[in-house]
């Protein structure tokens, strides 16, 4: 697996979590979600492909969507986290922190071992 493919898989695997985190702060419409993700991450490569993910998360009952008219010159579709979505997000956050912590420990151990080897030579 190439470095690019690995990064791509990592990006795709974390996109659901990033979207749920973005919406957990309050209801947001599609473009606002994309802009928020852009401000903090480089997870959005093609803007239009975020909408199908929002649709899937809605079908899975993690988000609920509502069209709002009159707020701008065009209607906006707002997404908010459901109770099920909040529960899933809490699970995902816990799993992510545990996962990241373990990988960090592994990286630190490898770095320490390499430094020790250099010290011995």
């Amino acid at each position, binding site marked *: 697996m190439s470095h690019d493919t690995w990064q791509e898989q990592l990006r795709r695997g974390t996109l659901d979590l990033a979207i749920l985190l973005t919406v957990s702060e309050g209801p947001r419409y599609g473009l606002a979600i994309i802009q928020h993700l852009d401000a903090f991450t480089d997870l959005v490569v*093609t803007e*239009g492909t975020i909408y*199908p*993910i929002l649709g*899937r998360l809605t079908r899975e009952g993690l988000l609920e969507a509502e069209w709002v008219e009159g707020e701008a010159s*065009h209607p906006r579709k707002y997404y908010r986290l459901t109770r099920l979505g909040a529960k899933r997000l809490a699970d995902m956050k816990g799993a992510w922190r545990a996962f990241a912590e373990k990988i960090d420990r592994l990286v630190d151990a490898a770095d320490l071992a390499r430094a020790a080897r250099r010290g011995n030579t």
Partner: protein
Amino acid sequence: MTLSEIGQARVHGYLFVLRQSLKTFLPPETVSDAVREIESHLRERVDAAAPVPDERAALEKILNELGPPLRVAQAYSAERTIDEAVTTGRFVPILRAIWQLAVTTIAGFFTALGLFVGYITSFAFLALAALKPIFPNNVGVQYVRGYPVGLGAHFPLSPDTDLRGGYWVIPIAVFCGLGILVGTQRGARAFLRRWRERHRS
């Protein structure tokens, strides 16, 4: 930025292609909702853009960032039709997903062609197993002038055809039919899984 008539036409063209692509695999109300949301995104981006002399370049930049309509449609497909097929592994959703890829992509067309041959072959074997008890004299190994030329059902038998094979044809046909069906189904699911991973966002 306020779009000129040419700019408006470009946006309508984009949405038209997206709608036509989505129509091949999504129900009408879902297509309308998806197109409405993408249109809302475009209007929002256009409204937020500062007026520039080169409207065309500014609009193309917005459309490029959104992604080509076929790419967006493929992402919808990966998240919906193909997702259902891969996660459930059921026969009908897999057929629907394969059909949708076959009519929208070249790779999908040739893969569907191969899978179609697999499904037809498996059904042919299973049909032979079902027909053998009903037409025992018409189902079996066909010999022409003493040489075996094929396994199948023949209605009516031609005078120079010799059909051999007892009821042992049934378990062999069932074994081959189910084996090819399971293999084809697994191949279809693996193909759809790879496709979904490649075309999700």
